[in-house]
Structure formats: structure tokens, C-alpha cells
């Protein structure tokens, strides 16, 4: 700084009239000195960033949906490298991304079960909703539920102001001609944004290979639930499904049945017995039935023991047969057969 001031002193001989040179030199010189200082400091205090963080950041979808439970994709990338959290948390990326990440990190990713959002209410459209009053406020479910417990008679059901659709970043939710929200199974990534957006928590994430849903969330007592429901498909908590379920996957609590999808074998028996048709079976009528190939069967009886509905009969070391009437097409026997003797037709 002393040298600089000497130069400036020489450049402007009269102190009374400094001219234009002095300010330029002083401010420019200051800038130069600070610049050099910072350049030096940036070398001296350099912080090395793990290159994998950037690679992972590039591989992640960049939707910042928060399904992984961390703030944004950059946060997830950081957590993978530094905290070693699982590679499978990214719902939009799915198994393909988990594989890619495992290549970057050099570790095993594990299986990703793809889950999709399912709305647990069969009401909410133009014609299948009973209204208490005409709501004319802000077009949002969150706002509507605050006024006298919501505009629809069922205080558990869908209001139909599409908060879930508006929050979906993947354009997976649309409204059909009846005013009902449809979730596109291909576009849905299971990020859970709609689950958090729904003020009545009607949406749950369900493994994509399970196709039986209880389309009701009403905890009202049976009679009341039936009265207020606009679609007439409310769960009345009768418990028939729970009794009929071959694997005890359904529990009824507070007049509402819920399926444990870890146990559910996708057989659809509950749907056929539900008196109010509150249970929707998307595979109804489309299920295949198991058939045992006689030439391969060795009569080990494993399939008969594993069958949840006792549809397979046969003695030890004899060829077994499937009772087509009883078989629900759950695939368990196909998976358990050691000789690959069972197929679905």
C-alpha cells in the first residue's frame, strides 16, 4: 500500500488538483490487491469436494421432490457419499437409478419395490359426492376442509378440489369426465407429494404388484358411513373381508378395514365378499389359474402345504392337481415349486 501511494503521489504532483488518475489508481489498485489476496486464499484454503457427489447429482432426476426424505437431490447426493444412506430412496429414479448409483458408489443397491399412490376413496366426483353446502372459496382441498368440516357430508372422503393433482410434479394425476382423479401407473413415481398434500390423508403408497384396494377411509360407524357416502361403496367395518382373507392381511379398526400389503397375496377374495363393494380388485376376472404339469410333478406336497386357499390336492409321491374353482392365482405355488412344474394359465 505504501508503494502504491508513492506511485500515486508521483503521478499527481499537485495535491490540490488530483486529476482523474489518482482515484482510478487507488480504487483499481485496491481491487487488484484484494483480487490477488483472494486468489491466493482460494488456493491456500481450497476445500476438496468429493467428485462422486457431483456425479450422483448429475444422475439423480433433479425433481427435488423430497421422496428420499432429504432436502432436494443435492442433499441426497451428499448424504449418499458422506453418510452412507441407502441408494434406493429415490422414488422417481426407481431401480434403474439405484443400479446406476451402485455403479458410481461401487456398492450393492438392494431391491427397490416400486410403489404407486392410491386414493382410498371412491367418492369426490361430480355425481358420486353428497354435499353439505356449496363451497365457494379458494379452490383448494386444504382451504375447503377448514369450513364446517368440509363441504361434503362424509367427513373422511375426497372433496375433489384436486390438491393432489396440483402438487404432482410428474403430471401423473388427471381428472376424468366424472370429476374423479385418476393416477397414471406409468407416470407415478411414488414420491409421496400427493400423500402429504391431501388434507384427509386419503392417499397411500402401495407396491405396484398389489392390485386390491379398499377404496374408503371412513371411520364412521357402518350405518352413518353408508348414509353419508355419495358413491354407496363405503366400508362399513363388517369384517367379512378380514374373515375371508386366507392370509389374515386385513384388519378392521374403528369401522375401517385396512390391508397389510406385506401380507396380501393379491388374491381378490376380499373384493368378491365385500357387501358394499368398497374393495376394488383391479385384476377381477383377469386372474390366471395355476395348473400342474403332470410330467414334472414329483409329489413333494410343498405346493399343497403352501397354498393359502387349499386348492391343491394330492398324496405324497403322486401327481397333484389344482382345483380350478378354489384357486385364486396368487402365484405362491409357482414360486415354491422346486421343479418348476406349476404354471399359470
Amino acid at each position, binding site marked *: 500500500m505504501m508503494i502504491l501511494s508513492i506511485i500515486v503521489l508521483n503521478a499527481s504532483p499537485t495535491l490540490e488538483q488530483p486529476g482523474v488518475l489518482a482515484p482510478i489508481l*487507488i480504487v483499481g489498485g485496491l481491487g487488484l490487491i*484484494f483480487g490477488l489476496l*483472494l486468489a491466493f486464499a482460494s488456493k491456500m484454503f481450497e476445500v476438496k469436494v468429493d467428485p462422486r457427489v457431483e456425479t450422483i447429482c448429475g444422475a439423480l432426476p433433479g425433481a427435488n421432490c423430497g421422496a428420499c426424505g432429504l432436502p432436494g437431490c443435492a442433499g441426497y447426493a451428499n448424504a449418499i457419499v458422506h453418510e452412507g444412506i441407502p441408494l434406493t430412496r429415490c422414488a422417481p429414479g426407481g431401480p434403474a437409478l439405484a443400479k446406476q448409483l451402485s455403479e458410481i458408489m461401487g456398492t450393492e443397491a438392494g431391491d427397490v419395490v416400486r410403489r404407486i399412490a392410491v386414493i382410498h376413496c371412491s367418492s369426490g366426483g361430480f355425481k358420486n359426492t353428497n354435499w353439505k353446502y356449496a363451497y365457494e372459496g379458494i379452490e383448494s382441498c386444504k382451504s375447503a376442509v377448514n369450513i364446517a368440516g368440509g363441504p361434503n357430508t362424509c367427513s373422511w372422503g375426497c372433496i375433489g378440489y384436486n390438491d393432489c393433482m396440483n402438487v404432482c410434479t410428474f403430471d401423473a394425476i388427471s381428472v376424468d369426465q366424472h370429476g374423479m382423479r385418476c393416477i397414471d401407473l406409468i407416470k407415478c413415481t411414488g414420491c409421496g407429494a400427493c400423500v402429504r398434500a391431501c388434507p384427509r390423508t386419503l392417499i397411500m403408497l402401495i407396491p405396484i404388484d398389489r392390485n386390491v384396494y379398499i377404496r374408503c377411509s371412513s371411520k364412521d360407524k357402518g350405518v352413518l358411513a353408508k348414509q353419508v357416502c355419495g358413491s354407496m361403496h363405503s366400508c362399513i367395518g363388517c369384517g367379512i373381508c378380514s374373515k375371508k382373507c386366507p392370509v389374515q392381511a386385513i384388519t378392521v379398526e374403528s369401522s375401517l378395514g385396512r390391508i397389510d400389503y406385506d401380507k396380501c397375496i393379491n388374491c381378490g377374495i376380499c373384493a368378491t365378499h365385500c357387501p358394499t363393494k368398497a374393495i376394488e380388485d383391479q385384476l377381477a376376472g383377469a386372474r390366471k389359474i395355476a395348473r400342474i404339469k403332470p410330467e414334472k410333478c414329483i409329489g413333494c406336497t410343498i405346493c399343497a402345504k403352501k397354498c393359502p386357499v387349499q386348492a391343491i390336492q394330492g398324496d405324497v409321491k403322486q401327481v397333484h392337481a389344482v382345483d380350478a374353482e378354489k384357486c385364486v392365482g396368487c402365484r405362491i405355488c409357482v414360486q415354491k415349486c422346486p421343479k418348476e412344474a406349476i404354471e399359470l394359465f
Partner: protein
Amino acid sequence: MGYLGEIFIMAMTAIFINNFVLAKFLGLCPYLGVSKKLDSAFGMGMAVIFVMTLASAITYLIRNTLLIPFDLGYLQTIAFILTIAALVQFVEMVIQKNAPALYKSLGVFLPLITTNCAVLGVAILNTEAKLTTGIDYRFIDAVLNGFFSGIGFTVVLLAMAGIRERLELVDVPKSMRGMPIALIVAGIMALAFYGFMGFKI
């Protein structure tokens, strides 16, 4: 009154009577932004004390060795901003290297010290301030004033962070949660500090 008394008056003035945040309303952005947690408030306070002290020292030197001799007082603002910006960049690099956790918790507010008007404010007010004896600030006075102003900022920031940490547990009406209640608290704190104005030291 000796020089120690002078320093005491300077400290009391900077911390309580003419507090930068609550009396001069400078540096409100970090005051509301970084006062959610005590830890990060403390870190921010330390960073501001450091930057304010250093900025006071360097801007004093620049003003009195470069600007005044060449009659360039009108360049004061731009030269000071240049100095503060460079200083903050430097501090940021040092913190990132030596205290990554603090760097993370300060987040965007560390670069924002650059535009923290309290830092520029202390540099500019130092040029006009006078001791009780009526003489202009000398170098050591300017540095001390910068230091005490930083302490004043930190004290208020820590008080605010403490209050806001407790507010988290309070049943505040939904529409008032977060920033609205913070602004109300800030107003009440400013009123309380207004009481110090009557002090005669």
C-alpha cells in the same frame, strides 16, 4: 475520565444505547434469517464481530492513508464496499476450510454479510464519530468501535435466537407461526432497547 472510561462508554453505546439492529435498524436480514438456532446465531455473530473489527481497521487505514490525502472522500463508499466484499470472501474461505459445520449452518447468510449494511454502517459511522472529548476517532478507537458494534449485534442476535427457540414450543396461532411472530418479537425487543436511550453515562 481516562481512556478506559472512554472505552466503556463506547462499548455501552454500541451494545445497548445505539445498538445497530434495534436502534439503527441496520443488519436486519441476518437478524431475522439466522436467529432460528442458537448455534448458528452464535457462529454468525462471531463472523460479524470478526468482519466488523477487521473492516473498521482496514477502512480506517484506507480512508486516512489513501482517500483523505488525495481529497477523494467521495470515493469512500465504493472503496469501503470493495474492502468489505473482499474481506467477507476471505472469511468465507477460511470458515469453509476450518469449520465446515459452521459454514453449513450459516449457509447463504455468510456471503450476505457482504451486503450487511451494519458492516458498511460501522465503517462509515466511524469516519464521523467523535470521542466525548470531541476529537475524531483514532485507529484504535475505530477498531474498538467496530468490535463493540459486532458484540452488540451478536448479543441481540443471540437473545432473539434464544427467544425463537422457546417460541418453537409455544402454541402460537397457526397464521402467526414463523416470521410473523418473529417480527413481533423483534418489535418488542426494539421497544425494550429504546429504554436504554435515556441512559446518561
